[in-house]
């Protein structure tokens, strides 16, 4: 089973068997954002550094950045979100993934929070 890690920006990162990483936002994030009406995704082949703003979600009230959790290159985006942004509210941690990336440094994945650490982090908020 693929391993999932989390960031303090409330993104999840799933390491796939082919070594790419799938990125989305957590249920906590979609809940905090409220009704999402628009998602802007990065261009495929875009090279990103860790922490760089790569996507934007617009809720009814506000725009929020989605950051690259790790350095690498965007290799695929989820076009479903462009057609149906509310999918992020309905299924944030599975169908509503944002993009897949090739990681510059696969070991960096280990530096992200595991599920227990993320749950602990949520409790400090």
């Amino acid at each position, binding site marked *: 089973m693929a391993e999932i890690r989390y960031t303090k920006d409330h993104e999840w990162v799933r390491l796939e068997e082919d070594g790419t990483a799938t990125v989305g936002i957590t249920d906590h994030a979609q809940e905090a954002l409220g009704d999402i009406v628009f998602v802007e995704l990065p261009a495929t082949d875009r090279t990103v550094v860790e922490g760089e703003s790569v996507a934007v979600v617009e809720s*009814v*009230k506000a725009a929020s950045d989605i950051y690259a959790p790790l350095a690498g290159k965007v290799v695929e985006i989820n076009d479903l979100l462009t057609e149906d942004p509310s999918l992020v509210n309905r299924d944030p941690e599975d169908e509503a993934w944002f993009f897949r990336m090739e990681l510059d440094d696969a070991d960096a994945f280990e530096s992200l929070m595991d599920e227990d650490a993320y749950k602990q982090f949520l409790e400090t908020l």
Partner: protein
Amino acid sequence: MDQHAATPPVTPEPLSRTPLHALHLELGGRMVPFAGYEMPVQYPAGIMTEHTHVRSACGLFDVSHMGQISLRHRSGSLHDAALALERLVPADIVALKPGRQRYALFTTPDGGISDDLMVAAEADQLFLVVNAGPKLADLAHLQQHLGAECEIALLADRALLALQGPGAEAALAALAPEVAAMRFMDFRRVSIDGQDCTVSRSGYTGEDGFEIGLPSAAAESIARRLLAQPGVLPIGLGARDSLRLEAGLCLYGSDLDTGTSPVEAALEWAIQKSRRFGGARGDGFIGAQRILTELENGAARRRVGLRPDGRAPLRAGAPLFLPDDPATPVGHVTSGAFGPTLQAPVAMGYVETALAQPGTVLLSELRGRPVSVTVSPTPFVPPTYKR
């Protein structure tokens, strides 16, 4: 996930609470600071559901943070009170009959707007509803100019509810049957559960509905009775903002401010004939020189409705350009959001008057990319007032 729009400024002082604070928490309201108050931005249903529910059924809003002010001339005459208030607003208050309400603006010496408000006439006094942010400044302004001849009181022990939507009449009539006979902008005193309430048939959503002023001590029990009526849901400030924007209604502090004149704001309809040059009581209000001159000659810029292409909302502050000159701004957005009824982004803003014609295509910028924007008539969603 940093939110970088529409977050209200942090208030250094402790936040005030309305008499419905405990009820908001019980209903799962997400509380945010707004104009010095802790207010629900949404309930668990979410802004989109709350918005569409008001358009299709009925919503109850707590707007107790707004200022309710009574204005009474020491002579006891409504006419004298109306004449006094007309020195501060360009609306015809003298012609306002007891039992009727009208939209008005407080103007500044250089023709700007220091707040917008509702003015209702009763038998012997005026009743004002002003915005939460400027309410203490409004009170000081009234005291300064009218205090010598009028008794002016901020009704701090009263709450204000708004009941809006096609189901509002049935819901409120269940508690006070006489409200069913009221028409848009009627105002009257009504007894609900033995409490002295003010009811106006008006609101801030473009829907039929009521605003109900009532004693703070009775606010929670009457709010619960209204929420118990079929189809009534609590609605937060988030949906209030998207509803008013679809209805083309201005938000003070965003679309109107002291740097904006009534003519620039396309609010000429709030200046009746009697208050214009040649009118019976023209020229007698603060800032009249600039405002009445602009009424005759027009202003250099004008508030317009805007429809951005695509689905991404344009937010306040976004610049507007001519399509062939993306270097020189010709205006900017003052309010913008996603319109749940239209399922499309809507906005309003100011543009050079020559570009204010509906159908004019402009360009804005969203995260560094151009977005086409069409000047559009407002309201975006037709109102359903009971006239």
